[in-house]
């Protein structure tokens, strides 16, 4: 009985955790950040712009999960971090506008935009 109760409470806690903190990602905010921060930097780098539609949904999911940027020298997350946004906000309006957005939310926004804009997504997207 005790074990059953413990398991039930534990399961409920887990479910609560996943719903209480469930974030409803905003693909439009992800679109603005991707285009204004990611693309604006990539334009000037040797690698050039990367259209969301250049990869499939699975490829984007794997890329974000691997969290490797610049061939593994850095993480993807660091470019979404508040620290990074703070560092570029004087010259980047998107970073300034979204400065208070939690990193997890912004990353989820970008992920959703990339899933929608992927080659096999609902709305294959370019960089502009």
């Amino acid at each position, binding site marked *: 009985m*005790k*074990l059953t109760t*413990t*398991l039930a*409470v*534990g*399961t409920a*806690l*887990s479910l609560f*955790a*996943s719903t*209480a*903190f469930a*974030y*409803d990602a905003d*693909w*439009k905010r992800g*679109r*603005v950040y991707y*285009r*204004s921060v990611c693309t604006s930097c990539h334009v000037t780098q040797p690698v050039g712009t990367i259209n969301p539609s250049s990869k499939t949904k699975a490829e984007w999911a794997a890329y974000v999960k691997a969290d490797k940027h610049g061939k593994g020298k850095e993480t993807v*997350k660091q470019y979404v971090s508040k620290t990074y946004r703070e560092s570029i906000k004087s010259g980047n*309006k*998107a970073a*300034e*506008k979204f400065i208070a957005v*939690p*990193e*997890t*939310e912004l990353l989820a926004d970008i992920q959703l935009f990339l899933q*929608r804009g992927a080659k096999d997504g*609902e*709305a294959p997207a370019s960089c*502009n």
Partner: protein
Amino acid sequence: MRHSFTRAALMLCSAGWLAATGPVFADEAKPEAKPLKLTTTADHTKFKQLQKTFNSGPEVTKACLECHTEAAGQIHRTKHWKWEYLNPDTKQTLGKKTVVNNFCISVASNEAACNSCHIGYGWKDASFDFKSEENVDCLACHDTTGNYKKPSGLAGNVVTKDMEFPPGSGKVLKAIDLSKIAQKVGKSSRDTCGACHFFGGGGDGVKHGDLDSSMSAPEKELDVHMDATGLDFSCGTCHKTSSHDVAGSRYTPTAKDSKGAHVRGKADNGNPATCVACHSNAPHKKEARLNQHATKIACQTCHIPSFARGGIPTKMTWDWSTAGQLDANGKQITKKDAKGRIIYESRKGDFTLGENVKPEYVWFNGNVTYTLITDKVEKSDQRTPINKIGGSPTDGKSMIWPMKVFRGSQPYDPVNKTLVTPHTAGNDDTGYWKNLNWDKAIAVGMNTSGHPFSGKIDFIKTEMSWPINHMVAPKEKALGCVECHSKDSRLAGIKGVYIPVRDNNKLLDTAGWAIVLLTLLGVLGHGAMRIVTARRH
């Protein structure tokens, strides 16, 4: 044993907890507050009416109307629903249902294709029930997921089960999840309005010139109001909607707004979608002289230096008379320019495209008279205007406005001397885009629109003017003086007003400067004589 199992179970649950919250706690020093939606007062995921599987659009509408009881009735009164509008000044019956243009020409007989942009479900022919509340499409304007799609050819209906379309084509239309979409409804946005208005005329940016998909999340350079990282206006910010009726129609535009900035509580504020409605009639605070310009020149003239600036070209001409060419194997052909953009299609004819296009300028008083299917047209060297833009320098109501002037050649009936409404779209034997047969296409189209057709076909040159309102540049990028005040002025075609430099006369200028020089010499001479005379005394 039992104790250790309990501990293991607790650890497992704790792991579950951590897995769920891990990223939050790992990335943030302290737990985030529960996300709160600030853009709406209702979380539609919580409504039982929407927590079900929907097999059609009308089923969703039925659920919406359980709470929003008056919404469909309000929609029924609007142009967006009726596609019909009686212009009170010209008494012409307009609206998409009636007008003819020089892009895809007309809706009649092409409803199944065109009406994917109607805010209703199932308008495939004249039998459509305009009084049905369930036929109203709430999601077209209120979707926030971006996943709501109304494929062309389905009369505005949505796909809820994967289907091959057109039948036998091997192309599969993917089903959309109406439940998920319905649970995330919200305010209309640039994306929802743009789903139709960015793609008018059959493709991205084709029709308007100042509206295309680059406006869905534009930078400040492209549109200072809609700038996604700045003011972030939606369409509805200016096109302020009342009882679902969207203000700012191009059938009766406000060319000159003398009513000043809108004030809350004022009974007659007029059109909220004008520049003046926010900026007033004297918007230039530092350069008062520019406010004098603003009495004759529309704001758009200086503040929208060019259109199609977002990297997406707009169509500038369309020649239907060259349609119908086939390759050696009898197949339809497509030609592209150096940039890979389509400039010829067998089913449509030749196009030219433009980017960063300088508008043409005209005196405009807000009166627009359409050439309708019932009006007589005469083939001549002059282009037939699809819409006549009213205005003159002396009527006191006109301003100098920027226009996209779209020129084309389209089929007409040389015996009855009318424009025609061909049946173009459709997977049937008479659809021009499939069989390239004008005789069949026009006969069916004219029969559907209910107008006589002699059976003779010719092509007539037409032009249609589109007032430019969007893609407002930052003030630093507004036109400089020399753009108009020069010999190659943008306003070269504007008559009835004296524009310094553009209109100067060399002889008059020489005489004027001679007078100035003589006056100066006279003053200097007089002064010198006064000095000399004074010394003598």
